[in-house]
């Protein structure tokens, strides 16, 4: 399993792929950072890094499907799926190895974005505890989206279709996030609690506030587990019904 993990990592880092995506991530982050500074309240001189994440979900959310689109679609296309499945590795292990590899790349991207708080800390003061909490929240949000992206990649042979499907689903999730904040939903308490329960951004909101709630962590972990299990089943199912 470690060999597959290593190979997956190499496919990201020995190609421009990981670096271009990291650059894109940094670019989005830096623009938001510049906006925050431009908007500084002259009295308090305060701004919030978690807010950068929170306000730019729309942009960050587009990076994940690009990260995951190739995971299974390319294996199918290149005929290398045969190699993996006829190897002694179980499908679940294959899924996990790929998931951890992408999770590592995502961690790499996030680590780079620490550049901004560090620069700020040199010239000012940063509330590290709340920042780290926001980073943890954002990372788990990302992992849940990665699992989802891998599921979509396992359903198609074309990486680009996996990416587009991913964007659609992500857009749907984003809609759910915004929908949760509408007055329509607020008018029906039952609906409100359901929509908020599923809203990833809402979960992230608590992390962004510096609140580490076990409930949210468990939500993300179980969402990841369910989607990865689904991915495993989807691949197994395709072996049975391939035509």
């Amino acid at each position, binding site marked *: *399993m*470690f*060999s*597959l993990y*290593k*190979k997956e990592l*190499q*496919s990201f880092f*020995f*190609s421009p792929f990981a670096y271009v995506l990291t650059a894109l991530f940094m670019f989005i982050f830096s623009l938001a950072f510049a906006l925050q500074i431009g908007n500084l309240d002259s009295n308090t001189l305060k701004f919030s890094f978690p807010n950068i994440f929170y306000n730019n979900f729309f942009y960050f959310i587009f990076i994940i499907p690009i990260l995951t689109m190739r995971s299974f679609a390319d294996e199918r296309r*290149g*005929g*290398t*799926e*045969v*190699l*993996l*499945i*006829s*190897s*002694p*590795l*179980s499908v679940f292990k294959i899924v996990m190895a790929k998931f951890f590899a992408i999770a590592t790349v995502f961690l790499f991207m996030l680590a780079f974005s620490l550049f901004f708080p560090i620069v700020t800390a040199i010239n000012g003061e940063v509330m590290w505890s709340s920042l780290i909490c926001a980073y943890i929240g954002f990372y788990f949000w990302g992992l849940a989206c990665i699992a989802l992206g891998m599921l979509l990649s396992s359903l198609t042979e074309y990486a680009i279709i996996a990416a587009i499907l991913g964007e659609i689903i992500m857009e749907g999730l984003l809609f759910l996030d915004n929908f949760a904040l509408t007055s329509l939903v607020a008018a029906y308490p039952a609906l409100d609690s359901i929509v908020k329960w599923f809203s990833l951004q809402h979960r992230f909101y608590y992390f962004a506030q510096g609140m580490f709630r076990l409930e949210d962590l468990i939500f993300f972990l179980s969402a990841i587990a369910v989607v990865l299990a689904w991915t495993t089943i989807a691949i197994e199912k395709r*072996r*049975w*019904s*391939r*035509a």
Partner: protein
Amino acid sequence: MVEIKNLTKYYGRNPAVRGIDFEIRDNEILGFLGPNGAGKSTTMNIIAGFLPSTGGTVIVNGFDITEQAAQAKKCIGYLPEIPPVYPDMRVEEYLNFVAGIKGVKKADRKQQIESAMERLRITDMRKRLIRNLSKGYKQRVGFAQALLGNPKILILDEPTVGLDPSQVIEVRNLILDLKKDHSIIFSSHILAEVSAVCERVVIINKGEIMAIDTIENLRKSMVSKNQLSLKVEGDKDKVVRLLKDIRGVGDITDINFISTGVYTYKVEIETEDIRKEILSVLVANDCGVMEVSMATLDLEQVFMKLTTQTQKRSSLEELLDESPADADEPDNKEE
């Protein structure tokens, strides 16, 4: 080594393989022969554990491929039809990766990779990106991959497709060499290919086994005892007339133009003894006999015959001893 019992596979409602039974014995090379779309690749994919079967069992070295998948897969080296290589990896890096997922111990990896590369003669290519290799070399890298982990069973799906003639011979020799410590199943739609390396053949068509027999029997059945092949210089009609006058000569078929005044003929004869008479008659009438030989069914004809059968036979001989009307069919078409 490998036992396949009543193997069935449906793609949706279409049967790809229907109730196949055969076995691969220890240290033998089993040829798996059939036209395109006969179910060869499907069967091999099932044996290798890539596809699950709809029904039946595959026992590999005592392990059921579905029940004890990991153990069974460890005994198998599989080279699929399209070599499963990653274009963005270097040859050595790729082999290292495959050794890893096959669970080869770190200490043994280097040695195994070296010996696989040496066997396939890709040692010089170790640092090359696979995407830059020619088709033949990609095929060899795919082959090298199958050897890692010292599997007892090798499944080779058309291993010589896309190779040039000298590479084909190399691969054949390699397969013969591997026989010492492996059981090999090797598929092809080219009969000559199979007859060059295999001891036994399984002939499959439309998902069903047509025959399982030794290659000797296949060769024997290819010689047709009562047909003479002639190449004669002289007027075509005259030659035919002369031949027809000889007692014991049956049908004359397959008259083919070779060059001006030279034709080939296939002559049915009752006994071999009249060969002399035929020759003397032709020579006496000023027809230059250029070649005489016992006609053999060429490999393609045998193959056509085998694969156009609809009924299941127990041996090749039985298959080939069908009524002559059937046998001549491909010939007539060619005319």
